[in-house]
């Protein structure tokens, strides 16, 4: 078969894929292979199903239809579809944010005792930003008022997102001039659905402009609210050591895997799994204890706040069940594969859905709906179900790969770069100086998903290794962070693979060359960190001046498209691996890859080869360094490290 390419760079995943084939169990990789060849019209963005005169397809070769029934051209069709993808991504992140605000509000109103404000300083800081009086006001009342103010950002009918005021003045003026200052969150999502309706906007550039505003409302609205409110409720993360990969599951313990995105649920599961009553119950059922592990971004949330180990990233959700040792997989929303229930049916593993937004058909999937009012009780009920399921485990079917790797997580916009100065020089100055002096070339955000259309993790690792080798400090979120954590790049020892300038700094301060900044909503932390860099001075006046680049080399979700657009529209050059579904639309493609530069001072690039992509980013960083007239790099002849070398074994 032409499709027999390497499926994963992760040894544990490889073992589990072998196990799947031995047992004849299908995973996303097998389904992807069965799906080949995939439709070229879809890939090129040339099919439209927005109305019932269609479906329509444009012939990219020119001999077939050049317009849809309504007269929409390839550019109109691709732009409309892309903007609907942005709308979905923005809706997902923002609804996540709304959920956290809801929990904060319930705490403030005294409607739940299970949540509390863990980071009072942050609550007060956000209250000040919102203009809410706090002096002499009880903390609960402040929480309720902050939550109400945050709620208003969703339904806002006048003016712009408040957190967007954090952006540098030049950027805000640019947004104002281009008409993309983000307004109410729900309004922007509704607007994107409206303008992409049959017979509304058909000017590709105008459509994309609506999409860009709808993406900015995610980054500087929904996602940023999710991040800030999570920090208030669950505590601002602090650097914490943990381990990652399927080897964190235990043969002699009750294994519970949480998967999804929203920490309101997973935080409570953490508390329930540590509850002495639950541990005693597990022991009564013959287990030594309870192991909790995470998949995807909910894993990142509880990793960075509690050091809960990570079982794997997106493509490992089915593989975790194939260990035969998972008593319950608890899911909430986003990136939860419908195929999961087919795999859990082959094992004793109980699949538990918890959100009314995400349900599975079939009676064998338990639905235990989670609400903020009875959060801890519900969490205990779910943990109890897992414990009681331990007896049904068939130990002869258990195959846990022994792979685990250490990492440090828990960096934030507030703490990440302050570590560069150590305890006594806690500001962004050391980071800015390191860039100005040429010890660090610049910054890169390598984020995003897994996708079976590329070898799992390979693009993340190869790109990140190439960047740090060239003295680029990398920050990560989401499944990209988990990929590099499995590879050992998020441990301080990873500095051995960095270029001499970056390595020197990492080793002096004791930090990894790749910093874990959280879940996919926490890409907002990167925006805030970059604003802090600007405020510190010496690296320009706008986000587009900073020597920084972004990448999503293994993107899969519509959320990635939304993130990509808010990042580029904030002035940061961003490389996607496989292209957006627009390549059949020449003007749209040209605008994303070139035209956006004139408007936003940044563009997208599409490059599947991770080394070439890394060098596009490095070249961009060099260009920005030159524009700022920064000193030449201290060590431009870097030691040749092997980007494919095995850093961490078992």
């Amino acid at each position, binding site marked *: 078969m*032409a499709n027999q390419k390497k499926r994963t760079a992760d040894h544990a995943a490889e073992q589990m894929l072998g196990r799947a084939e031995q047992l004849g169990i299908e995973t996303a990789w097998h389904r992807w292979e069965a799906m080949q*060849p995939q439709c*070229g019209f*879809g890939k090129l963005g040339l099919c439209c199903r927005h109305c019932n005169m269609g479906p329509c397809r444009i012939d*990219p*070769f020119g001999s*077939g239809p050049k317009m849809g029934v309504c007269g929409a051209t390839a550019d109109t069709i691709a732009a409309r579809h892309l903007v609907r993808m942005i709308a979905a991504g923005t809706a997902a992140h923002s609804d996540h944010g709304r959920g956290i605000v809801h929990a904060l509000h319930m705490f403030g109103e005294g409607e739940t005792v299970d949540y509390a404000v863990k980071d009072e300083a942050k609550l007060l800081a956000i209250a000040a930003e919102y203009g809410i009086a706090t002096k002499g006001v009880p903390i609960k009342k402040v929480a309720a008022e902050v939550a109400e103010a945050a709620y208003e950002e969703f339904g806002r009918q006048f003016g712009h997102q408040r957190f967007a005021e954090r952006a540098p003045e030049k950027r805000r003026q640019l947004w104002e001039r281009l008409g993309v200052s983000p307004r109410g969150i729900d309004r922007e999502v509704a607007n994107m659905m409206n303008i992409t309706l049959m017979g509304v906007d058909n000017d590709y550039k105008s459509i994309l402009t609506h999409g860009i505003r709808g993406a900015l409302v995610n980054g500087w609205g929904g996602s940023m609210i999710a991040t800030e409110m999570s920090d208030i409720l669950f505590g601002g993360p602090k650097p914490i050591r943990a381990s990652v990969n399927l080897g964190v599951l235990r043969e002699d313990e009750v294994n519970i895997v949480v998967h999804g995105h929203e920490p309101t649920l997973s935080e409570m599961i953490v508390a329930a799994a540590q509850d002495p009553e639950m541990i005693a119950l597990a022991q009564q059922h013959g287990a030594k204890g309870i192991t909790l592990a995470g998949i995807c971004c909910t894993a990142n949330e509880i990793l960075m706040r509690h050091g809960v180990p990570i079982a794997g990233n997106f493509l490992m959700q089915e593989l975790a069940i194939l260990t035969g040792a998972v008593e319950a997989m608890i899911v909430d929303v986003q990136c939860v594969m419908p195929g999961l229930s087919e795999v859990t049916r082959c094992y004793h593993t109980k699949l538990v859905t918890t959100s009314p937004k995400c349900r599975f058909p079939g009676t064998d999937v338990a639905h235990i709906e989670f609400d903020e009012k009875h959060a801890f009780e519900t969490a205990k009920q779910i943990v109890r179900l897992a414990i009681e399921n331990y007896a049904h485990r068939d130990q002869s079917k258990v195959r846990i790969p022994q792979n685990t790797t250490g990492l440090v997580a828990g960096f934030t916009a507030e703490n990440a770069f302050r570590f560069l100065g150590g305890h006594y020089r806690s500001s962004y100055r050391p980071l800015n100086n390191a860039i100005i002096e040429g010890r660090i070339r610049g910054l890169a955000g390598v984020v995003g998903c897994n996708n079976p259309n590329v070898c799992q993790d390979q693009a993340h690792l190869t790109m990140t290794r190439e960047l740090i080798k060239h003295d680029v400090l990398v920050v990560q979120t989401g499944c990209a962070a988990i990929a590099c954590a499995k590879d050992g790049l998020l441990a301080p020892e990873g500095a051995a693979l960095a270029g001499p300038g970056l390595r020197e700094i990492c080793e002096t301060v004791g930090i990894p060359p790749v910093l874990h900044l959280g879940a996919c909503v926490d890409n907002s932390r990167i925006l805030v960190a970059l604003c802090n860099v600007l405020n510190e001075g010496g690296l320009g006046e706008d986000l587009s001046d900073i020597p920084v680049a972004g990448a999503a080399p293994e993107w899969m979700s519509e959320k990635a498209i939304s993130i990509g657009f808010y990042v580029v529209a904030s002035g940061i050059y961003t490389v996607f691996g496989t292209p957006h579904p627009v390549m059949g639309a020449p003007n749209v493609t040209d605008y994303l890859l070139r035209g956006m530069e004139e408007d936003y001072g940044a563009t997208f690039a599409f490059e599947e080869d991770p080394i070439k992509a890394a060098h596009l980013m490095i070249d961009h960083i060099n260009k920005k360094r030159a524009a700022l007239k920064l000193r030449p790099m201290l060590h431009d002849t870097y030691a040749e490290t092997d980007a494919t070398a095995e850093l961490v074994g078992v």
Partner: protein
Amino acid sequence: MKAMLVTRTSLCLACKACEIACAVEHSASKDLYTAIQESPAPCARVTVLQGEGFTVPLQCRQCENAPCMQVCPTQALSRLDQSSPVLLEENLCIGCTWCVQACPFGVIRLDAQSHAIIKCDQCFARVQSGELPACVVACPTHALEFKTQDEILAEKREATLAEIRGTLDEVTK
């Protein structure tokens, strides 16, 4: 006149519209929305395959000296006349799969539901009534064409002439 299905692989986008159209054409209802609910489910006689760097719809080549016809023990496979495609008399097919083994292209298969083999008939009834095969009509990029040998040869000769003309121009420049 005997015609053949021609694929310009550079135009194939693997949308599988040919597969869907073929299945619908060989269904009882010949209607997409009804066909998808029929039992036995209609199936396509063409398969879009992924090659190294290209995709291509594969179907029966209607070989002049057809090995499938030669090995068929019940004469279920036959031609009406010289220009006809190789047609299946389903009632005669015993599902022995000798033709499956004899076919050099892997485009004949046994259908578990009907216990008979499945192969492309070039939409014989449609073509008789002056229409093109369903896959050709369905192809949105015109990657699939239905042509006689004479038409193909004429096109190729024309292209050759153009090439010679170009070379002559180069030489006499």
